[in-house]
């Protein structure tokens, strides 16, 4: 007897191999073969799992984390103030931005004095974890249930403000991604951004 058997398996998961002789039914293969036929035939008539993608979309969860959106406030001004917290929070360093100062005639475009003149997310780096959303103090960035479309060149995956900022006339509903804590925070009049 080998020493192994006395000690037993350290993981407790080892199995004793059975080398028993095959029975006659096992040796002629046929019963097992017909069993296999029955299984494959039953699958032949089963409902198929294929989703016909371009025509049919797999239903996403309400809180699916897909393509980002840069929100505007109720008056249509960009909420982002280019604080860089999302870029800091981003574990894959997908977000870059350049801050700029708001001019007098841009009061209706940007909510605060500072805004992001360039805001880029590299969709190939992004892992859609949603940490940017969590980090944002201005309720500016959210993930939506839109998937990032495929493209041919790596450079085409760097999305700028032209894609990310929501259009004024086509607002993106992100209410389902806002937790009750977030909503309470938004309504808190002590916070400057709600004043």
């Amino acid at each position, binding site marked *: 007897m080998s020493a192994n058997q006395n000690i037993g398996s350290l993981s407790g998961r080892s199995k004793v191999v059975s080398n028993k002789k095959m029975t006659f039914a096992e040796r002629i293969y046929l019963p097992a073969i017909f069993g296999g036929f029955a299984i494959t035939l039953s*699958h032949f008539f089963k409902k*198929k799992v*294929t989703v016909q993608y371009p025509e049919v979309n797999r239903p996403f969860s309400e809180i699916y984390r897909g393509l980002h959106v840069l929100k505007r406030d109720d008056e249509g001004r960009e909420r982002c103030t280019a604080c860089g917290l999302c870029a800091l929070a981003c574990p894959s360093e997908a977000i870059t931005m350049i801050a700029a100062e708001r001019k007098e005639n841009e009061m209706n475009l940007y909510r605060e004095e500072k805004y992001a003149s360039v805001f880029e997310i590299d969709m190939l780096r992004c892992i859609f974890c949603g940490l940017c959303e969590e980090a944002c103090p201005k309720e500016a960035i959210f993930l939506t249930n839109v998937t990032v479309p495929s493209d041919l060149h790596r450079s085409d995956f760097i999305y700028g403000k032209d894609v990310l900022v929501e259009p004024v006339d086509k607002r993106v509903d992100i209410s389902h991604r806002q937790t009750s804590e977030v909503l309470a925070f938004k309504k808190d009049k002590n916070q400057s951004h709600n004043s």
Partner: protein
Amino acid sequence: MDGNYILYKLILASVILLISLVVAMYSTLLERKVAGFIQDRLGPNRAGIGGIFQPLADGLKLFFKEEFMPGTADKFLYILGPSLTMMIALLTSAVIPWGNSFIINGTEYTLQVADINVGVLYVFAILSIGVYGIMIGGWASNNKYALIGAIRAASQMISYELAMSMSIIAIVMMSGTLSLKDIVDQQHGMNWNVWYQPLGFLIFIVCAFAECNRSPFDLPECETELIGGYHTEYSSMKLGFYLFAEYINMFISSAMIATLFFGGYNFPFMDSLNLSHNALTIIGSMVFFVKIAFFIFFFMWVRWTLPRFRYDQLMRLGWKSLLPFAIVNILITGFVIMIKNHM
């Protein structure tokens, strides 16, 4: 033998050639569909309705692929390989009775290109040459993997040919003829050979799988060990010929199984229908093709059900199980025939 007769045979041969090619073409689609359905998928369905143009697209793709020939390959044999495989795959269809006969204006037109009285022998002769296409292709590529694949294929096909022929001998003993048409005619109605030769049928169908290099005996092709087997160095339509010949072989094998064991164009209650001879022939041919279609499906069903054999298991099954069983089958058949004759 008048001109009319020759013209008729020419047309028949062309039609059968066409049917073989179209059936093989759509077998490739069916294969992918069956694979998909068995794996809970849909299979190709984008090219045309239900993927009906998929085989055309596949063929077109192969035509437009780069025609690459290794510099060290034997040019003549390299081209001969796939051509031979394709030709041999198509040759067998000449002796298969695709239907009974049409009687038009008192002349009988049989739906068989050549009713030679050694049809079974002819089939085996063609089958044996089938090895050459693969062997020549594998050798001419001047690639060790292709050569090993070809050797594997050759030894597998030769091994299983023996047991296959042995299982047919029992049928020949029973029917006392080598003509395929006579063998079919003896299986009138439901008097099919499979009821008398179940063991022979089992051996034959297993060997048919091995002869066609189909799963579970698809050892000549394996990506992990041989990078593709005997057609490693082939590309474009030459590769297409090899792959296509496999499907033609499958069609012909199914036709042979249906002919030898399942009554060919005979079907139950064919006498009680009170139909004319010509109408019966048409229905019989359709029944024959339904049988063939079932066996083609069966080939695919097996492929997507069973894991492949290991090479030593393959050889053991061929030499130590199927061949002895085939011989025993011959002995039993001979014994029964002897008892019957003396009663």
